[in-house]
């Protein structure tokens, strides 16, 4: 289990606050997007069970393409479970079962003709605890290419540079790519994991509390990064930090005990939520 500190949501999120602190973010949020698929990922009547325990109850929601969607809710409400089902990471666990479906661009992730590996190649994932491989920085980035059988040096070099640049890490590590990934600081490691997740150019990026183990400066860098990445990726981020959700996301879903309570534009969720439970949660009255 995670520590209490990580679990405790940081409240006091009024969008106005946030907008004052980060005007440029707010402006970008307001700019109308190019044409995009509002139903990039669709969750349909989705229920999920760990053995006999039902964890998700009849979820129905759609994640828009090239937007950031935040999943919020008290700990144990099923945010990670939902996230980890999108790339079928939960397949590793014995005794799981589900009802309903999850579609990516209309194709079911449970399609028996779809290989899990090819599904995961389309989806990058960043974990709460940064998990660099015990290899060099370079090898960490190119891992997803190598396992796909792509070993051409020029392609690998180019991928390392573009991924690290996209993860805003290039300038810090470009001179020590062959050093162990463990020589990096905590924040750098997490950005390395982000770079690794996007190295194989996925469409979707799943992030499970990517900043909960980081200090505020590192957190700020990653939030900026999420902003830059969303022009290319559909991002779903689980967070306990209300301010963070407000700062980085376009849409926010509030889950409570496995049920989707409210799902709307972030602005709406934080300014005038329609459900009293949402209101209570975002204003810190329970959690």
């Amino acid at each position: 289990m995670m520590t209490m500190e990580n679990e405790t949501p940081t409240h006091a999120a009024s969008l106005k606050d946030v907008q004052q602190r980060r005007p440029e973010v707010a402006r970008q949020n307001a700019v109308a997007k190019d044409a995009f698929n509002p139903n990039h990922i669709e969750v349909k009547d989705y229920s999920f069970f760990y053995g006999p325990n039902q964890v998700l109850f009849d979820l129905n929601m759609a994640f828009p393409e090239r937007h950031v969607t935040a999943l919020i809710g008290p700990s144990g409400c099923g945010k990670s479970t939902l996230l980890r089902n999108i790339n079928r990471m939960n397949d590793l666990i014995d005794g799981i079962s589900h009802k309903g479906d999850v579609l990516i661009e209309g194709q079911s992730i449970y399609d028996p003709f779809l290989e899990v590996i090819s599904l995961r190649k389309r989806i990058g994932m960043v974990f709460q605890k940064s998990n660099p491989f015990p290899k060099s920085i370079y090898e960490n980035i190119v891992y997803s290419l190598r396992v796909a059988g792509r070993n051409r040096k020029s392609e690998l070099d180019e991928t390392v540079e573009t991924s690290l640049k996209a993860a805003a890490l290039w300038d810090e590590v470009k001179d020590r790519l062959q050093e162990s990934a463990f020589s990096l600081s905590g924040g750098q490691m997490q950005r390395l994991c982000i770079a690794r997740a996007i190295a194989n150019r996925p469409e979707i990026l799943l992030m499970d509390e990517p900043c909960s183990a980081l200090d505020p400066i590192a957190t700020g860098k990653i939030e900026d990064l999420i902003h830059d990445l969303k022009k290319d990726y559909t991002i779903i981020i689980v967070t306990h930090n209300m301010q963070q959700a407000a700062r980085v996301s376009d849409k926010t879903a509030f889950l409570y005990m496995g049920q989707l309570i409210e799902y709307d534009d972030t602005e709406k969720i934080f300014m005038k939520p329609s459900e009293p439970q949402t209101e209570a949660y975002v204003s810190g009255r329970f959690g």
Partner: protein
Amino acid sequence: MSTVLEEPRPVARPPRAANNAPVKPVGEVYVWVTAMGLAIGLFMILFLLGLIAYNGIGVFWPRNVAVVEFREDGPTRFMGGTRTMGVITLEQARDVRDLTPEQMESPHPANRREKQLFLGNRDAFGQAFAFFNAGDIVDVSYPKNVIRAERMEWGDALFFPVRIEDSAGNVVSVDDADFDTELKRLVREVVSRRTQISRIERHQIGRINLQMRDLELEERFYQRLDERSAADEAALAAVRERMADLQAEYQPLADRAGELRAKQREHTLVYEVITGQQRSMPVGDLVSYYYPNQLSVLGKTRHFFAHIWDFLSGHPREANTEGGIFPAIFGTFVMTLIMSIAVMPFGVMAAIYLREYAKQGPLVRSVRIAINNLAGVPSIVFGIFGLGFFVYFVGGTIDQLFYPKGLPTPTFGTGGILWASLTLALMTVPVVIVATEEALAAVSRGIREGSLACGASKWQTIQHLVLPASAPGILTGLVLAMARGAGEVAPLMLVGVVALAPNLPIDGMFPFIHLERKFMHLGFHIYDLGFQSPDSEAAKPMVFATTLVLILVVIVLNLTAIMVRNHLRKKYAAGTF
């Protein structure tokens, strides 16, 4: 221990429980019990190692040769005389049952003690060691002109040189100024000639013999056929022709060896032993010689290292009691190596299946319990299994399929280094499985999930991340397996170890690695020296030295594996979160 005992006891009063009963520090006594256990264990190990190291290394130090004089009126005599000569190896209290009443009453305690001397000259005296009553010794001197000579037969000789004669009647007397240079030159010559002879006999003639043996087997095979076709007749003729060729090749080599052997006997060394008897031997019998009582500490050190080198690199002589133990060291190394090569893939694959792929449940649990129990099966049982399965079944089948011409003489159907290694591999595989499973389990879930999220398959994850990260732990298992395997003797006696093997399992003869050959092993060598040799007293130093080498071999093997492991561990140091 003593420093621990002196530690001041805590003075604070024991706290009282609620019911006012004094709370005793009940755990305290167990600190001492456990510490005692550790101390006793450590002491015993260090004592054993120290004893072996002291005795094992002491063998090689060239010690002075003493001339010992007995009382004219005492009972002690050596070959009828009052003098003897030898290396004083031991002084100890005599067994009371051997004491005469006078000795028992004697005011001199020396009368109840005895000295053991290494006399050498087993050919002259019939024994290499003897005990003498310490009380009867009146003088001990160390004459400078004593030679200690290592010989091809009869062990070492201790003597005073007299002269060198050659077959033509030329004589160099010990009083001549160039006696020593002459002897040195001759010994150098015979040593190099001996190397030549052994090269001819061991390698060239040995190779011909092996080919001859194969051809004879083939010849017999064709002869035994009930009906021979024309092709068979032709094959038989070809075999006979090749045998004739080999015979022709053999003859000049044998002649050359005979010639060299005759040269070895050209010069004779005449010497005098302590009883005054003059004896002689061909210089060709000498391996080396030196004047122990003339050596400075530096000279002794040189001899010390030379002796160690000869011991480690030489072949055994005289039923293993003399010479070196190189074949045994080599056999132990090769066997342990083959065992490791066999045990690693099997153990690691089994562990990967058990830990990564098998569905955890009652079946896997019972397999795991069975593996752990396998580690506790007595090694002799593995020996018997190896004999029955590997030697008779697998080896017998191989012989029938691939070496039918040799039958009934077995090729693989008899004990050999491959079967011995596989038997030990089977014995140690549980160790590797258990260690590997633990190492695999220790690889963090985060890394596995990270890899899967990158689109890697399960096997790719294992191959690229899990196995490298658990390599240190797997090597720990290998270290344990090698430590257990290299020191094992009992099962080997059934599956291929011999006291004296004519050939090494790896040599310059095609196909270079001879897995079917019988081999020598340090552990068995110790057993053979200590319990099977006719003169156990003479073999004792060799037993200690060989034991020391076995321990060192095991340590070297382990250290290598540990160093590799630490290197890997450093590489993946931060890999464990």
